[in-house]
């Protein structure tokens, strides 16, 4: 329903479409309404934390990255035109902050130190594979990891990932294919080395 098609409910109140609600929320937040900003944060904090966690591999680092990302959102709120673009903006900022942290801290846990209980000889359960995959992700180069996180975990299209990473679709497609192959080999390695 567009703004022009806004109907009245039984109480005579205007029913807003999700787009209109988002626009109103963003406008209020830009005007300094703290509750509106907190509502936006509530909508996106899960996404921000999830991506930061998969890129950084540590809850503490992910919390730091999330905090920094949301602070930047508050600082640059004026630059966001509509709430629908907020998600893509946050993906981009989260990836940038996480990559900066990785370069600065170099705190990735080496694969050899990762605990792994999977038995290479036995078929592993989906739960075990999820555990292995989340650990193996940290062994990927940062660009491939970002592409895999956005494409395969967040479920974005290749075009959306390319826009977020400020790259071409061809480059992202290459990063995704290379990343998946490397990820599989890392998972295999974990399965073989795990006790």
């Amino acid at each position: 329903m567009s703004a022009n098609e806004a109907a009245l409910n039984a109480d005579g109140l205007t029913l807003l479409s999700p787009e209109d609600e988002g626009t109103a929320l963003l406008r209020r937040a830009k005007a300094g309404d703290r509750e509106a900003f907190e509502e936006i944060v509530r909508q996106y904090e899960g996404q921000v934390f999830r991506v930061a966690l998969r890129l950084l591999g540590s809850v503490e680092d992910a919390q730091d990255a999330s905090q920094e990302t949301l602070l930047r959102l508050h600082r640059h709120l004026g630059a966001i035109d509509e709430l629908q673009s907020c998600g893509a903006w946050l993906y981009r900022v989260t990836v940038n902050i996480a990559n900066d942290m990785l370069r600065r801290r170099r705190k990735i846990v080496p694969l050899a130190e990762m605990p792994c209980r999977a038995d290479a000889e036995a078929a592993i359960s989906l739960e075990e594979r999820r555990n292995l995959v989340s650990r193996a992700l940290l062994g990927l180069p940062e660009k491939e990891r970002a592409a895999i996180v956005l494409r395969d975990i967040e479920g974005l299209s290749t075009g959306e990932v390319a826009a977020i990473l400020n790259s071409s679709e061809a480059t992202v497609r290459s990063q995704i294919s290379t990343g998946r192959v490397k990820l599989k080999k890392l998972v295999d390695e974990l399965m073989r080395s795990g006790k």
Partner: protein
Amino acid sequence: MNCADWEERIALYSSGDLALVEVEGHLANCPGCRLFLEELEANGTALAMLREQPLIRREKRARAVRWLPYAAAIALVLGAGALWKPETVGPPPPVRTAVEAPRLAPMPRPVIRTVRRVKRPEKHEPIVVKMLTSDPDVIIYWVTD
């Protein structure tokens, strides 16, 4: 073209990013690459599950950490406010101590002086009474205010 050359194409094919008849043709004839594809698909499913992995507890912690500086600042201000007692406002709090208070000598009762106003008579000329005696050399004068 050996199987290693097919890997990246199969990786794209596994998620539908690439639809090539050539890939399907190779898969049809290569059990190793079919297994490779199956494992890629399993990894893809596991990755998708990571999105659904509950992060509630962690999100709460993240939220707590986010607002921690603000909360800390507020606590600091409130704490400082509680400690700061301006000397000019209100009486000092009573000091409670286990030490017995010294016995002080009773204070002397204050002396209350009342001033009674006495109405003084108006000034006038003194009364002089001259009394003569039988002795001509003795004369008694009685003078009053």
